[in-house]
């Protein structure tokens, strides 16, 4: 297969089109403008719809409309913009609509910075909108994975009739890397017989709604959603294990920091400290069971969580590991990226502390 050099945001947009996305609606925000720009140029030729919306709120509701009428649809944004989309994401979960939301994260809170960050972990994995809900959250660490996950994202969304989020830091969106366009084997998906796309002879109308005014009905609906969330937890968990078999220091990181952690682990091994990396690919569902198993290995002395935040995934890491091993944290925020030497130092320090 031919290796091609792509820019992250453009590769994500191209992957979405190849995955069958036929409606993109978005609003400009740095550092992800190449996604709507690419879509505006390429989507019409693919027979799809591109709309530059008047706001993020409008963009997500356009996606809601396209999804409700049976079209594979997507929006993208960066942190402050994704905050505005939370209403629509909650409604899509409630109305059981599939769509893909890409968040190329930048520094926050508020307007923050335009450099890479991971401060939206809570928002993505806990549900930033109202109500009890979950969205499968996929966190690519390189461009190959980013494009591969786009195909999965649309399939997962359609399979469960639930929005899926791609949560990538600004580095993934902005850097250029080689990638190959692999053959994607689509899932066996049910027909969208629920879509409000015109009755066309159907004996009843399809009514897409998230409103259930009777408490008992709304609870029953929530229980149905809960079953889906449980199924996603059982079937969609993904992670990568790097040099974990004999690891004494277990680094946990996702996205770009996972690559930094991997290089740091390689350096540490040269210095005689056996380090490994556990990289969640799905942030929700979080691969807690496997992380716990690895942390329980006799070799593991300490776990170091590395993030471009003040420690958000850290909650999930601690929930997974419990008291079985000490957990330490190293993070940079606001658009600052941890260096390999910083992570090495933090890991070596944690190792010395517990040795």
């Amino acid at each position, binding site marked *: 297969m031919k290796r091609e050099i792509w820019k992250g945001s453009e590769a994500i947009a191209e992957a979405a089109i190849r995955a069958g996305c036929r409606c993109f609606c978005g609003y400009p925000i740095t550092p992800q403008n190449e996604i709507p720009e690419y879509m505006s140029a390429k989507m019409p030729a693919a027979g799809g719809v591109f709309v530059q919306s008047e706001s993020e709120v409008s963009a997500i*509701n356009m996606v809601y409309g396209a999804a409700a009428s049976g079209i594979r649809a997507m929006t993208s944004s960066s942190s402050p913009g994704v905050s505005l989309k939370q209403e629509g994401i909650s409604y899509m979960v409630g109305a059981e609509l599939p769509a893909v939301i890409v968040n190329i994260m930048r520094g926050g809170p508020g307007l923050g910075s335009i450099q890479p960050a991971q401060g939206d972990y809570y928002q993505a994995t806990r549900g930033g909108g109202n109500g009890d809900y979950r969205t499968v959250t996929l966190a690519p660490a390189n461009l190959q994975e980013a494009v591969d996950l786009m195909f999965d994202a649309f399939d997962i969304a359609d399979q469960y009739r639930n929005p899926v989020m791609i949560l990538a830091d600004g580095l993934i969106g902005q850097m250029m890397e080689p990638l190959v366009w692999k053959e994607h084997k689509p899932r066996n998906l049910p027909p969208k017989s629920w879509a409000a*796309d015109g009755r066309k002879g159907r004996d009843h109308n399809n009514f897409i709604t998230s409103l259930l005014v009777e408490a008992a009905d709304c609870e029953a609906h929530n229980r149905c959603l809960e079953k889906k969330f449980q199924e996603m937890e059982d079937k969609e968990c993904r992670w990568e294990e790097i040099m974990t078999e004999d690891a004494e220091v277990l680094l946990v990181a996702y996205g770009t920091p996972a690559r930094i952690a991997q290089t740091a682990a390689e350096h540490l091994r040269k210095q005689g400290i056996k380090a490994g990396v556990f990289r969640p690919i799905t942030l929700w569902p979080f691969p807690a069971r496997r992380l716990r198993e690895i942390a329980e290995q006799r070799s593991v002395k300490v776990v170091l969580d590395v993030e471009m935040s003040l420690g958000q995934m850290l909650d999930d890491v601690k929930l997974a590991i419990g008291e079985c091993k000490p957990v330490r944290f190293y993070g940079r925020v606001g658009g600052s990226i941890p260096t390999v030497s910083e992570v090495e130092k933090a890991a070596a320090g944690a190792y010395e502390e517990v040795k």
Partner: protein
Amino acid sequence: MTTIYQKTKGLQDTTLHYCPGCSHGIVHKLIGEVMEEMGIIDTTIGICPVGCAVFAGNYFACDTIEAAHGRAPAVATAVKRTHPDQPVFTYQGDGDLASIGAAEIIHAAMRGEKFTTFFINNAIYGMTGGQMAPTTLIGQRATTAPGGRTKEQAGEPVQVAEMLSTLKGLVYAERVCVTDIPHLNKAKKAIRKAFEKQMAGEGFTFVEILATCPTNWGMGTAEANKWLMDNLAAYYPLGVIKEV
């Protein structure tokens, strides 16, 4: 036996939840009749608002999508663009459209989106219990304007059809009411014309329907009809506001 009257196939065979004297039921019926007469029940996609018409998907016979509060024009934008050959309409009240959804309706009109909006203007929030809307008249009482709306506190009510008519993407705007048979017939004609212009691909089409809300106005049904003609229709003039 000859059939004198039959409920339109554009509506489902179910009981409406609207209050006595409310205009929603009549407007639903008119839209249903137009869809039936035009033979578009099977292809139309309707977008419902948040407000009293939140259950409209249980009433219209066509496929329907319930939108978040005010977002129906954004939802309709993508539905229409991905289904350009099918009729698409939004059905929105004045709180939904003129307040929380002001940005969405203005930009849909600005872009000349080829769907139709039916705007139910009863100058009050119905479902939440009679709060002031952007369309509430000066002096009109509301639960959040207990002494009546004042210009100083809330500004003056917005004439949505006139405001949207300044936008080039809007090709047709008419204001109607359904207080009596002649007005009802005019309203039905406007609904049909909006659908026809939409399907001819002319641009954004808008029908504003002045509506009664006897419950929240605190009036009987006949009194509400009279109040509408004397007050609402005086501030919001009936007729074609713009036609290109």
